[in-house]
């Protein structure tokens, strides 16, 4: 499998360059290559996932220098899972972007899309903290372009805020990395794991500062309160398919926290102890509350879905903050589920906005074309996001609740109350969108003049819903696989061994 580990990073990078240089202005060719690239990425991700599940973690030396000196990519179960999730989501959402014609509303959509794939895959696969920073920047710079795709006043204004916020985050990241390097003299994850664990007590203060700085950076990416302010405006103003892809971007923050705080700063570290879990849990609870209240109070459909994304990050971080194998299994299941569910809801919201001409929830508007179908898709997406049976959201929340059973009742209360708030918020929005439109008092209630949804766009939404249904039906095998993934995170010896630190062959 060795060389295949680099393919998820190299394939999109080559394709993006090719699309920019050789296919300028030829949208058909761009679409073919971009979709082909996404499909190939999915195939490679599936193969890597199978390889990671059947063997120990594997390191790939870029430049063939031994690990702590050279840069490595490391394929383990968690990295393979995240790459697979990204590839599957990206293929479906790319289909939607092509079907709905979003990719034609500006230049270079597909090139930026491929660069985004490169950044995401690299961030998940890298085994080096500084390289994580570099891949964060790759995915961010592509996301800046995608976010303002199509232009427009509000989108540009929101884009400036998004870029400025993330630049501050990048600077913090560098401060954290430099502090870690100053204390330990290495930035390779596996090497750090050994060095941080063996740190003399006198150095504990600095490494704690670095750990908290790093937590702040990942919290910005994961939209954890009080660093979530960039998310609603960004997601609400981004093009629908881009917002759906961004559903996996907040998960990069969650992934980085899982990786760093189980491998480098596990709760058993003498220098840091349970510091990070103690910081993470209250912030996650408040994030969930803020997200649910936002769903209840949002004035437009896209903002509502954006706040649902914030709430899903809250639930995810609650499960992560426990740092036990059972809770991490629940967290991983919820991570996969919420990525797909939020993406479905963003795509449905985009369908509604395109047909209705506005996502404003303050007033009823005439019914959209093929309203029955879109309303059914909205219902399915809302059920998934709110965590109602029969879709996987229910199972995911059940797993999270089960994992936190041992600790404070506050967590149960917050999760259950916010679930109710989310359901009410989604139901109110749904009735404004699809029921009040038939009210005789609504101006122009008989006319449906918006554009009909494109078949390919509907297929893309149906694909994502099918994935959610599959996640529900095959919950048993999936959780068994995720349990093995979570177990490998809390027993990192194999991951560290894969790096063959300092051994020259």
């Amino acid at each position: 499998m060795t060389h295949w580990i680099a393919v998820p990073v190299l394939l999109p990078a080559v394709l993006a360059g090719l699309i920019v240089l050789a296919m300028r202005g030829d949208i058909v060719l761009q679409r073919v290559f971009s979709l082909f690239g996404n499909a190939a990425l999915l195939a490679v991700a599936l193969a890597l996932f199978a390889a990671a599940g059947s063997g120990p973690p594997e390191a790939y030396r870029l430049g063939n220098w031994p690990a702590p000196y050279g840069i490595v990519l490391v394929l383990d179960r968690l990295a393979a899972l995240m790459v697979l999730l990204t590839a599957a989501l990206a293929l479906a959402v790319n289909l939607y972007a092509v079907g709905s014609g979003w990719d034609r509303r500006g230049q270079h959509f597909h090139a930026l899309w491929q660069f985004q794939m490169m950044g995401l895959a690299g961030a998940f696969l890298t085994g080096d903290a500084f390289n994580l920073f570099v891949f964060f920047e790759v995915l961010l710079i592509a996301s800046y372009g995608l976010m303002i795709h199509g232009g427009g006043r509000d989108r540009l204004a929101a884009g400036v805020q998004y870029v400025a916020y993330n630049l501050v985050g990048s600077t913090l990241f560098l401060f954290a990395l430099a502090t870690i390097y100053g204390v330990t003299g290495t930035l390779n994850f596996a090497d750090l794991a050994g060095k941080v664990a063996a740190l003399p007590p006198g150095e504990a203060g600095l490494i704690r500062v670095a750990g908290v700085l790093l937590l702040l950076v990942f919290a910005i990416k994961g939209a954890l309160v009080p660093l979530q302010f960039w998310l609603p405006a960004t997601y609400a103003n981004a093009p629908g398919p881009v917002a759906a892809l961004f559903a996996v971007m907040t998960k990069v923050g969650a992934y980085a926290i899982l990786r760093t705080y189980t491998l480098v700063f596990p709760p058993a570290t003498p220098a840091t102890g349970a510091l990070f879990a103690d910081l993470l849990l209250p912030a996650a609870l408040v994030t969930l509350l803020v997200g649910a209240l936002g769903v209840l109070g949002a004035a437009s459909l896209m903002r509502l879905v954006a706040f649902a994304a914030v709430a899903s990050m809250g639930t995810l971080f609650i499960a992560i903050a426990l740092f036990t194998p059972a809770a991490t299994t629940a967290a991983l299941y919820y991570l996969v589920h919420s990525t797909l569910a939020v993406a479905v809801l963003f795509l449905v919201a985009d369908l509604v906005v395109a047909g209705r001409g506005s996502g404003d929830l303050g007033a009823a508007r005439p019914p959209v074309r093929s309203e029955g179908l879109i309303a059914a898709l909205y219902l399915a997406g809302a059920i998934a996001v709110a965590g109602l049976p029969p879709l996987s959201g229910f199972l995911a929340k059940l797993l999270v609740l089960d994992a936190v059973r041992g600790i404070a009742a506050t967590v149960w209360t917050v999760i259950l109350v916010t679930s109710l708030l989310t359901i009410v918020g989604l139901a109110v929005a749904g009735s404004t969108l699809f029921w009040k439109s038939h009210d005789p008092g609504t101006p122009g209630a008989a006319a449906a003049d918006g554009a009909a949804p494109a078949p390919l766009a509907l297929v893309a939404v149906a694909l994502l819903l099918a994935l959610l249904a599959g996640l529900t039906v095959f919950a048993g095998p999936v959780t068994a696989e995720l349990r093995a993934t979570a177990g490998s995170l809390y027993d990192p010896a194999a991951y560290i061994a894969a790096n063959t630190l300092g051994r020259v062959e």
Partner: protein
Amino acid sequence: MELLVASAIGVMTAAGVYLILRRRGFPVILGLALLSYAVNVFIFASGRLAIGRPPVLTAAAPGYTDPLTQALVLTAIVISFGMTAVLVVLALGAYLETGSDRVDLDHDADADAPEDRA
């Protein structure tokens, strides 16, 4: 020298944070630039301060300076340069489109409901 480097990092960070909190496009960009200068010096210092030492192996060297932090700084400079360029272009575009260079969104901006904005 420690005092000089440390106070340079501190002053640049403080000035950068102050400028970022000004909420207007130009000061925010200047503030981010100052912050990135501060962090570049900080990364450099994290490899320990050494004067007149070579970073690569030579037979006559009395000691070495850390070459890795220099490579990290180089990467950080390139990235922050590119990012600042993107932000400048974006801020200019937003200024020309909206007629204001405020970075904060004091109004609830919604792309799908542009008509209810003042």
